[in-house]
């Protein structure tokens, strides 16, 4: 007989949204599937923005002594390209997959905190728009995506460029942290009965590890950015050499965040590849436990290698040696994963469709990027490579050949689950081959350009350097990549109009998401599944293919061989009857407070660059969003009796 205190009746001028259709239902959604779609679309649009920034740079660099863009504009281009691709493309695309797939693969109806989930998305979108708004003021960030002090200090970085960067990253950091807490709790606390940690799909393991990395790494850059902005605004001395401050300390803090960040960027794609390869080889993942532990080892060791980004800053032989050793060591768990992926496909009944091609492409290209990475681990060779195009080659092989290829593999693999339709296979293969060729043509020449001494972040170079021919190839490759993306976009529109319909389990999959209809009903599962084994869906379908001892469930009962009619792919009860208090499936109601809070925070951050009363208004809006959210029950009590 609990009573509600008066203060819980927060003023609610707009009635709580209820409709399931229309744009307002998307704006107020708390459904992880819709939020996943929103992340995916937004990230893809930012991918095009970052891609155009790249194409302009490639046009500028295709010719020696070129003057297509000025050095100032070029600085903004490479800064925004990096910032966009990392924070507005790869991370949100990973978030799109976490959103869509984590609840489905663990057998849950949604994430632990659906409104917090929506808040993460709206904060991310607002932050991304804010940082790109800087272009309108001709003040796009221009000091590199890593913003080295003291170039970024007030005395040298005049104007609002770096301020836009700092505020944008802080806002995006809030979005990422909120999502990290959410998925951490979801994966730990919302797994279906029977799904112990070692029965989780590898994608879920990688997702869990990434959330832990986010929680531990982002606060470090938060502090670094606060210290930088305080130096710029309040003339504190964190990176001021005249007062004894140390610019190198910025690099330490940035890379303490920055190195775990690159594992945040690659582990989701590695998780996707670990799901795709087994399905299209019709074999279980080779060495599941090794793949999982290697992922955890990479994440853990990733906190001890940061100064390999600083080998040329004069750290001294002791520090330099230590970081060289730890960096070389981290290649070991990475190699373990590679061998296990190869072992998965080896001897399998292999189907080379688009999703599989992208995953195999991931493995091949990541090996190339990993090899150049290993050469960076040696300080003498790194001294040659640092700040040259060799580094650009390395990280594009791992981030483009790695993360982007892995994410596209996930797109083709899970597209039937999201939409109920296949993406066109022929177009998919054209996309893959064009992108593969284009990517290698763009980035492979950068290895020898770097070794020949071409520095990074230069807007032009002299003809005498002899670099023009390789740069021309790189630019050609970039446009081939662009064409491949157009093929993908065309594929999307073609299949959304009349694509081939896919059923619940078109790939004969191994994991729980394939046990429910495509597209997924709003409640996900009619009944929360009882999990008995790793790759539980496969085991339920083909208990005779696994070892005799494993063909028992956790109670010791023999698993019955499943016939198609035994597995309910389509609920026999209509969805409308399932939702509602009488049938026990409670889904959280929509809310507009996450949107208000997210936009409010971004508005607050942006307004710090203008009038104080704008900041006050933004603060009040944010406060309204947060308090309204705090006092709003998860479900509207008037709906249920």
């Amino acid at each position, binding site marked *: 007989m609990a*009573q509600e205190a008066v*203060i819980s009746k927060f003023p609610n001028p707009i009635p709580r949204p209820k409709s399931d259709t229309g744009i307002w239902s998307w704006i107020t959604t708390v459904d992880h599937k819709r939020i996943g779609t929103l992340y995916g679309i937004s990230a893809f649009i930012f991918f095009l923005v970052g891609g155009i920034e790249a194409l302009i740079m490639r046009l500028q660099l295709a010719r020696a002594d070129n003057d297509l863009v000025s050095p100032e504009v070029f600085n903004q281009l490479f800064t925004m390209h990096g910032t966009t691709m990392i924070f507005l493309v790869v991370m949100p695309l990973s978030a799109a997959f976490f959103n869509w797939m984590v609840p489905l693969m663990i057998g849950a109806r949604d994430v632990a905190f659906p409104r917090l989930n929506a808040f993460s998305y709206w904060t991310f979108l607002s932050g991304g728009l804010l940082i790109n708004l800087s272009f309108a003021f001709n003040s796009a960030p221009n000091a590199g995506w890593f913003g080295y002090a003291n170039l970024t200090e007030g005395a040298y970085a005049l104007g609002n460029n770096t301020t836009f960067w700092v505020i944008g990253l802080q806002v995006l950091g809030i979005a990422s942290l909120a999502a990290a807490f959410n998925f951490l709790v979801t994966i730990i606390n919302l797994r279906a009965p029977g799904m112990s940690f070692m029965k989780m799909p590898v994608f879920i393991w990688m997702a869990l590890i990434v959330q832990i990395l986010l929680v531990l790494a982002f606060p470090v850059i938060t502090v670094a950015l606060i210290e930088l902005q305080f130096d710029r605004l309040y003339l504190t001395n964190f990176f001021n050499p005249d007062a004894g401050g*140390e610019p190198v300390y910025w690099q330490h803090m940035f890379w303490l965040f920055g190195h775990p960040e690159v594992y945040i960027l690659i582990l989701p794609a590695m998780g996707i590849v670990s799901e795709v390869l087994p399905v299209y080889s019709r074999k279980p993942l080779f060495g599941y436990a090794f793949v999982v532990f290697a992922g955890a080892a990479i994440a853990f060791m990733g906190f001890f290698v940061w100064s390999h980004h600083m080998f040329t800053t004069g750290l001294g032989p002791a520090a330099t040696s230590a970081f060289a050793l730890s960096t070389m060591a981290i290649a070991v768990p990475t190699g373990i994963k590679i061998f296990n992926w190869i072992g998965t496909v080896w001897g399998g009944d292999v189907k080379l469709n688009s999703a599989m091609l992208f995953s195999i492409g991931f493995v091949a290209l990541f090996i190339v990027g990993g090899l150049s990475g290993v050469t960076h681990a040696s300080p003498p060779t790194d001294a040659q490579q640092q700040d040259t195009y060799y580094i650009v080659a390395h990280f594009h092989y791992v981030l483009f050949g790695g993360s982007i290829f892995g994410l596209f593999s996930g797109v083709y693999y899970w597209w039937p689950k999201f939409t109920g339709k296949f993406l066109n296979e022929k177009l998919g293969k054209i996309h893959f081959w064009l992108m593969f060729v284009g990517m290698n043509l763009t980035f492979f020449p950068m290895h020898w350009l770097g070794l020949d001494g071409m520095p990074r972040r230069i807007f032009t170079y002299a003809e005498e350097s002899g670099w023009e021919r390789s740069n021309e190839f790189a630019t050609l490759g970039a446009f081939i990549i662009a064409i491949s993306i157009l093929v993908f976009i065309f594929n999307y529109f073609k299949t959304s109009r009349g694509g081939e319909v896919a059923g619940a389990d078109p790939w004969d999959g191994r994991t729980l998401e394939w046990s429910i209809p495509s597209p997924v009903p709003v409640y996900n599962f009619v009944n929360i599944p009882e999990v008995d084994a790793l790759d539980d869906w496969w085991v339920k379908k083909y208990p005779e293919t696994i070892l005799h001892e494993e063909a028992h469930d956790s109670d010791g009962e023999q698993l019955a061989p499943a016939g198609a009619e035994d597995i309910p792919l389509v609920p026999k009860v209509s969805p409308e009857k399932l939702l509602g208090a009488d049938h026990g499936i409670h889904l959280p109601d929509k809310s507009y407070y996450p949107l208000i809070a997210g936009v409010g925070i971004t508005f607050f951050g942006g307004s710090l660059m203008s009038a104080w009363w704008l900041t006050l208004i933004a603060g009040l809006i944010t406060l309204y969003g947060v308090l309204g959210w705090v006092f709003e029950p998860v479900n509207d009590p008037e709906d249920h009796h």
Partner: protein
Amino acid sequence: MEHHEETTTGLSHRKLLMWSFLGSECMFFGSLIATYLVYRNQSKVGPWPDEIIDVPLTTISTFVLLMSSLAMVLALNYTQRDRPKLARFWILMTAALGSGFLGFQAFEFTEFFHEGLTPRINLFGTTFYVLTGFHGAHVTLGVIWLLMMSGTVTPTGKSGVSLLATLLAFYLGMVGVLGMVDVIPDIEGSPSVIIFIVGLILTLIAGAWHFSIDTTMSVKHQSENIEILGLYWHFVDIVWIVIFTVIYLVSANDGEHLTEGLLHG
């Protein structure tokens, strides 16, 4: 509406969320403390710690904050044992002790300012104010949260008004404290003493009213919320123990004569 959520670990989602958040806060404060340590003895000009730091005074404020954690434990205990009046008393006492700590901080900041330590004068000023300032901000948010939670262990109808009254009284008291230490420029000397005393009396009156309200209502269902608040509050206290140790115990005698630091030998 009470509902039992089934979770894989048996822990509630919200408690797990708070633990995850505190994990990130460890890295947040860890970075700020690391910055302080890295820049120890690197200031080129004074004021130096040994001229400024007043260990006895800060020991008292540390004690006050520690006692607030004790009050928090008692608040949780009485909530779980369904003793609404005592639960509410101890939540408000936690807030009061926390505000007291903040008052000491405000006093200390102003004193240091008057002695010439500003955030921009040297590295000690920069790192000191930013580290302790962010800690103080966390305490402030905690106090606000405590005051709001005290309303949830009070029954319907009168809690809003009485809570508002208590909040106002606290505010006046804080204004008085801050004014007494010249932080607010227009309120100096004796008027602020009067405001402080008035604030104190109003707090006692409003608090008494808050307590006089019928409290036969059960508050046990708020146990988890109070526990989660307690987690945050104890964490903020533990961070202060670390900060106090680093700044006031370890580096209190750093002075002009010392130049050994972590970055330069």
